[in-house]
């Protein structure tokens, strides 16, 4: 049985946010939506301040509060550890978003076409990309995945439903790592199967100590953080998202 997990090596992360870009291109998320987000944090008093970075994908919890509160079972936990959203079933009540202590859920407030960073249909853009790259919508996102055969990869490129990080379920299906892991230039993100002792992530667990975010709320996340330290009450963001819907 596969049990997917992501390791984040905070000693390596340099806060370049390349993972965020990779995610946006792979999953075609719209303006102001960040399935993968990297906190750039500062703590302490000047001049004794410290900077740190904290990548925050969906934690794919084993005891996921969002799954428990979903009134229609659109948010569900797969046996391989993924927490996914069925865009065909979601009714848009946004309860999962409030149950989640990590703030990883994004609602589609309007038609996603309206909020792309680039208007891919525009002739000027078309001339540069040749209509090839990046496609307006990754065709893989429209497929059904897993034994359950549900519309999960697209997140919610539909008005009025929820979306969030899928661990790139469409890439896992092809045996690839998630886009953020694939892109990370310093290999701060490692993806693998916890049940497989030869996987990189299983070896990391044996060799080093790790922590998980907000263990006190009992969500049992599948994202493990190595090195560094969890954000404290003192941590504050130095660079926040300006984009708004």
């Amino acid at each position, binding site marked *: 049985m596969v049990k997917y997990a992501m390791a984040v090596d905070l000693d390596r992360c340099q806060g370049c946010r390349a993972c965020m870009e990779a995610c946006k291109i792979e999953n075609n998320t719209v303006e102001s939506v960040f399935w993968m987000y990297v906190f750039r944090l500062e703590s302490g008093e000047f001049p004794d301040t410290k900077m740190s970075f904290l990548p925050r994908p969906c934690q794919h919890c*084993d*005891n*996921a509060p969002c*799954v*428990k509160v*979903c009134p229609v*079972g*659109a*948010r*569900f*936990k*797969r*046996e391989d550890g993924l927490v996914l959203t*069925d865009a065909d079933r979601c009714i848009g009540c946004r309860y999962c978003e409030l149950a989640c202590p990590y703030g990883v859920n994004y609602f589609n407030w309007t038609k996603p076409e309206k909020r792309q960073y680039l208007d891919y249909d525009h002739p000027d853009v078309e001339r540069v990309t040749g209509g090839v790259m990046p496609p307006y919508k990754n065709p893989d996102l429209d497929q059904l995945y*897993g*034994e*359950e055969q549900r519309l999960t990869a697209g997140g919610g490129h539909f008005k009025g439903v929820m979306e969030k990080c899928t661990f790139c379920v469409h890439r896992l299906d092809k045996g690839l790592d998630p886009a953020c892991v694939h892109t990370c230039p310093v290999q701060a993100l490692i993806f693998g199967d916890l049940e497989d002792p030869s996987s990189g992530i299983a070896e990391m667990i044996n060799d080093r100590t790790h922590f998980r975010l907000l263990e006190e709320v009992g969500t049992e996340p599948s994202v493990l953080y190595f090195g560094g330290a969890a954000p404290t009450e003192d941590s504050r963001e130095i660079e926040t998202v300006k984009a708004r819907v």
Partner: protein
Amino acid sequence: MRKGLTIGMIVGGIALMVISYFGLTAPWGAESVANSEPRLQFAPLVFVLGVMMAFGSALVYEMLPDRDED
């Protein structure tokens, strides 16, 4: 006959609620896909109908004319 039907509706309504809640809707838990699928589609509707049946028994009790009384 009227009383029998009333009691039958109350018992039947409660039975529908219990059966659909524990047996037909999605089981509690957040471990697998099965927790998100109702064991019978429209099981919550059965629950709601159970609630309505139990309370609707009052209508039967009060409004159904007795044919076989005295």
